[in-house]
C-alpha cells in the first residue's frame, strides 16, 4: 500500500505517453485482462482521454466503492464519458431532473419522486404482467420456429414494453426511442450527433408530457405531472419531467435488454450452468446477481470530478481532475470477498457487487431489472431447454462500440 499522498511520477511516466482506457478483451464475457494487472500494480493510474486530457482510473473494489460514496467526487462537474469518446468543449450546466449529472441535495429532490415506482413491493406487483409479456414473446418465437434474433424478438420487446407501460409511452413509438438509444450510446458518435439525439428524444418526451397533461393515464409520467401541477414547490417543471422521462425510458429498456441477451449467450457458453438453472429454477435470483457481477455491462464504468484535493487509496487526486470507477474491474477483484471472482458460478451466494454502481446514484431501477431478468431467463430456459446459437460463435457481434456492453444481435434456434 502506498503510504505517501504525493504522486511521484516515475521516469517512465515522464517519457512515455499515457495509456488509454483498457478496452481489448480476450474473452467476450470478461473485461480486458489489463485490469487484473492494474489492480495488482497500479490500482489508481493515469489514463489519456481520446479527445485530449487525462484522468485517474480506479480499478479496486474498495476504492471504487469509496469513490462513488464520497460527495467530494462530483457528478455535475464532468460530462459524458470523456475517457471513451470526445465530449463538447464547453461544459454544459446540468439540467433539472438530469439524475446522472446532479449532486446532492438537488439529486435527491428529483430522485425521490420517481423512487416510489421502483420499490421492491411495486416491482413485485408488476411480476404477473412481466411474466405475461415474456410468455407472449416466447409464444411468438415458438410459432416462428427459429432461428430468431433473441435481441429483437425477446430482449428488446420485453424491456421496452415494460418501461412503456410503466411510464406511459406508446409501444408503437419503439422504433423512435430504440433508434435514439443507439445513437446516444455509440462511442464513435460525435458530440454533435449525441446532442442531436438528445434533443430529438427531449422533443418526443416533451410532446408526451403535454399530451398526458391534457389526458392523464394510470402511468408514472401522468402521476408526476399531476403532483407537480398540484404543488407549487415541486421541482418537477416540464423541463425536469422531460429529462427524467427521457432518462427512465432509455435506461429502462437498453440496459436490461443487453443483460438479457448477453446473459443468455453466457449461459449457452456454460452449458452446465444453463442445465443447473433448467433443473432448479429457484437458483435464478442468485444467478441473475452473479450474471450482473460477472458481465458488468456498464463496461466503461462511471466518471466523477474531484471538487477538492482528495486522497483515495493512497493517491492524491487534485481538485478538478477526472476519476473513473472501473466497475467491471471492481467486480472481478478478489477483495469482493468471493472465491475465484473470474469464474461464473450461478449457484454462489450473490456478492455485494457494484454492477448497479454504488453511492446515492446507485441504479434506481435495479429491482425492476432483477425481476425482468429473473422472469425472462427462467421462462426462456424452461421453454427452450435445447436453445443454441444459430451461427458460429465468432459471428456474434459484440457491443465493444457502445457505452453499454452486450450483443447487437443473437441468432438462436432450439
Amino acid at each position: 500500500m502506498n503510504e505517501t499522498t504525493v504522486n511521484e511520477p516515475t521516469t517512465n511516466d515522464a517519457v512515455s505517453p499515457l495509456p488509454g482506457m483498457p478496452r481489448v478483451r480476450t474473452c467476450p464475457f470478461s473485461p480486458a485482462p489489463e485490469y487484473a494487472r492494474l489492480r495488482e500494480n497500479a490500482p489508481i493510474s493515469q489514463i489519456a482521454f481520446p479527445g485530449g486530457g487525462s484522468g485517474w482510473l480506479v480499478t479496486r473494489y474498495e476504492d471504487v466503492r469509496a469513490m462513488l460514496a464520497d460527495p467530494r467526487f462530483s457528478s455535475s462537474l464532468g460530462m459524458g464519458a470523456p475517457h471513451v469518446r470526445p465530449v463538447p468543449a464547453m461544459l454544459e450546466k446540468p439540467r433539472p431532473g438530469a439524475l446522472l449529472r446532479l449532486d446532492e441535495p438537488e439529486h435527491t429532490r428529483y430522485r425521490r419522486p420517481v423512487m416510489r415506482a421502483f420499490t421492491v413491493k411495486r416491482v413485485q406487483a408488476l411480476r404477473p404482467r412481466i411474466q405475461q409479456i415474456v410468455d407472449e414473446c416466447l409464444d411468438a418465437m415458438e410459432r416462428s420456429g427459429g432461428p430468431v434474433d433473441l435481441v429483437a424478438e425477446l430482449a428488446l420487446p420485453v424491456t421496452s414494453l415494460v418501461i412503456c407501460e410503466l411510464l406511459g409511452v406508446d409501444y408503437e413509438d419503439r422504433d423512435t426511442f430504440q433508434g435514439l438509444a443507439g445513437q446516444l450510446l455509440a462511442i464513435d458518435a460525435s458530440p454533435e450527433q449525441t446532442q442531436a439525439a438528445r434533443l430529438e428524444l427531449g422533443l418526443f418526451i416533451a410532446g408526451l408530457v403535454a399530451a398526458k397533461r391534457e389526458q392523464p393515464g394510470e402511468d408514472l409520467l401522468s402521476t408526476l405531472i399531476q403532483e407537480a401541477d398540484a404543488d407549487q414547490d415541486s421541482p418537477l417543471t416540464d423541463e425536469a419531467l422531460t429529462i427524467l422521462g427521457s432518462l427512465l425510458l432509455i435506461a429502462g429498456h437498453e440496459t436490461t435488454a443487453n443483460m438479457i441477451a448477453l446473459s443468455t449467450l453466457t449461459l449457452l457458453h456454460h452449458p452446465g450452468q444453463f442445465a443447473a438453472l433448467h433443473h432448479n429454477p429457484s437458483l435464478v435470483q442468485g444467478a441473475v446477481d452473479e450474471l450482473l457481477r460477472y458481465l458488468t455491462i456498464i463496461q466503461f464504468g462511471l466518471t466523477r470530478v474531484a471538487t477538492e484535493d482528495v486522497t483515495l487509496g493512497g493517491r492524491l487526486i487534485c481538485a478538478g481532475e477526472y476519476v473513473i470507477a472501473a466497475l467491471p474491474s471492481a467486480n472481478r477483484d478478489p477483495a469482493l470477498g468471493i472465491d475465484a471472482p473470474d469464474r461464473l458460478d450461478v449457484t454462489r451466494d450473490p456478492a455485494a457487487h457494484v454492477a448497479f454502481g454504488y453511492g446515492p446514484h446507485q441504479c434506481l431501477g435495479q429491482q425492476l431489472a432483477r425481476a425482468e431478468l429473473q422472469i425472462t431467463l427462467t421462462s426462456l430456459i424452461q421453454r427452450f431447454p435445447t436453445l443454441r446459437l444459430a451461427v458460429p460463435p465468432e459471428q456474434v457481434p459484440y457491443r465493444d462500440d457502445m457505452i453499454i456492453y452486450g450483443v447487437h444481435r443473437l441468432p438462436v434456434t432450439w
Partner: protein
Amino acid sequence: MRVTLDQDKCCGAGTCVLSAPDVFDQDDDGIAILLDPTPPAHLAAGVRDAATRCPAAAIRLEAE
C-alpha cells in the same frame, strides 16, 4: 445487535429489503423502514449483508 437507519441518507435502492426482509421494508415513497432495531441472532447475517450493500451507507450496526 442494535440497528440504526438514517432515512435522510436512504436512496431507495431497496437492497436492504432483499437482504433482510424481516428487518427492513420500504414505505410507499421507497424510503427504507426499520422494522426491528434489535433483530434476533438468526437474522444477523442478513442484516450485516444489508449494511454492507446499502449504497447510501444508511445502516449502522452496533454489537450489544
